[in-house]
């Protein structure tokens, strides 16, 4: 991508990145992808930036216990 500080992707940005990952795109595809990602990117960049300041947080998406709470958190929790 030409300018990582920008939230707005150009068709050229999209085509260059697609070529890098071996994704064939027609000109019309590239135009639509650029438009869609330009709409999504501001919020994604904002979230990514916000998460940079959150340390010691591992991504996890499953639960290992009935409540999903650590043992010390279980006290007082209703079933």
């Amino acid at each position: 991508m030409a300018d990582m500080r920008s939230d707005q992707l150009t068709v050229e940005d999209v085509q260059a990145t697609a070529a890098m990952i071996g994704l064939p795109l027609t000109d019309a595809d590239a135009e639509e992808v650029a438009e869609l990602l330009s709409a999504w990117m501001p919020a994604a960049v904002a979230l990514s930036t916000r998460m940079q300041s959150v340390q010691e947080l591992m991504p996890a998406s499953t639960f290992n216990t009935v409540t999903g709470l650590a043992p010390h958190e279980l006290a007082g929790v209703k079933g």
Partner: protein
Amino acid sequence: MKARSQLLNMELHTAAQRVAAGDVSPVDLVGACLDQAVAISDTNAYISVFEDALEVAEASAAMIRAGYRIGPLHGMPIALKDNINVAGKLTTAGSAVLKDNISMIDATVVERLRSAGAIIIGKTNLHEFAWGGTSANVTFGFVKNPWNKGRMPGGSSGGSGVAVASGACFGALGTDTGGSVRLPSALNGITGVRPTIGRVSNAGVIPLAWSMDTVGPMARSARDCALLLGALAGHDPRDPGSANVGVDDYSGTLDAGVGGLRVGLIEGYSLHHMQAAVEKAVREAVEVLQDLGAVVREVSIPDIEGNISAQLTVESVEPSTYHQRSLRAKRDDYADDVRLLLQAGELIPAVHYVQAQRYRALLRQQMLAAYHEVDVIVCPTLPFTATPLGETLVNIDGEDEDMLSAIMQFTGLPSLTGLPAVSVPGGFDQDRMPVGVQLIGRPFAEATLLRCAAAIQSATDHHLQRPPVLAA
């Protein structure tokens, strides 16, 4: 016609009791559902209907006559979203990409339904590969809402929602990644459950986004969903994401009431940014719970903002990974909207994806902390009611918004955190289109949610309303 309508108006649990008692034959139930599937064919709810289900029904009836009942769903006609494998049958995922895809073995959920006595009667239409919220399917036809066929039914399990609401089955399975069970449940006026991640097996189900996918039951009431979930839930060694956690008696605890239950509203979220009819439905559901003895309080989720973006990121990147090869080999077989989403998903930076996953962990921490103060959180299922077919924008608070983002506003919270949720009918808007209210619980607390939903349904009649095709 009237006799068929009377049969099809029964809820699943009632039909199951009557079959067990020998009052109703599975042959009549399956026959009525297959006839109804034909009668509502203009809604495009089904992709395929299994005529051989009648033979299974004959065998099922013979067993009852011989005094043998397979399980709690004996003789019940059930439909499956067409991304769930049934041995020897087509599984298209609603796409021309898989138009000739015959499944070799049953998905685990199909095995479990059969083990409980259910009869699979067909496969329902969906948003292609479950990647969308409207079920606007270009290959098998746009699914149409039975309450108004000019409106969309929600998605991606739109066909399952329509089939249940229309009486073309007694219950159905959907899959829910970002809301795909709950959204069509809300928009078709039925009840749907997104179980805790890992609660129900995904083995034999075509994935959308692995870290958020789950199968869930859709039916006319909490009692029916409890019956279905009881058959589906439990550890499955075929699914590496399956949770090895004991299964509650969902049906047995339904009538325990909500006295003392702590019901939470999330500050600045649960009643924020939605159409007026939706806000009215949520407030009324909370009042009903309060009248039944629940205690209502506000909770804070400081980092709630960002959930829609995180969901868009995760729900884009993971499907693009799954479809990477196929997208290159069969580009033109994909619907335009899904192809665009899959192409875009490949271009999202990896750090955004991982930060979105870390955000999920943060959101989960905050939700689990909130469950120290409350037992159930209430909010809308989605902030609007069914829009016209083919629409891509929705008007909320006087502004037109992108529907895909708006549709994720409330369903994304359980999807991202892995928490269970139930969508219950909450009434109707000014055009008599159904509104859904969402209940979100602790991990594996489906029994609490279903108990809460059953309490609401004991005090309201929204779930008893039927669309014109069934009310006739």
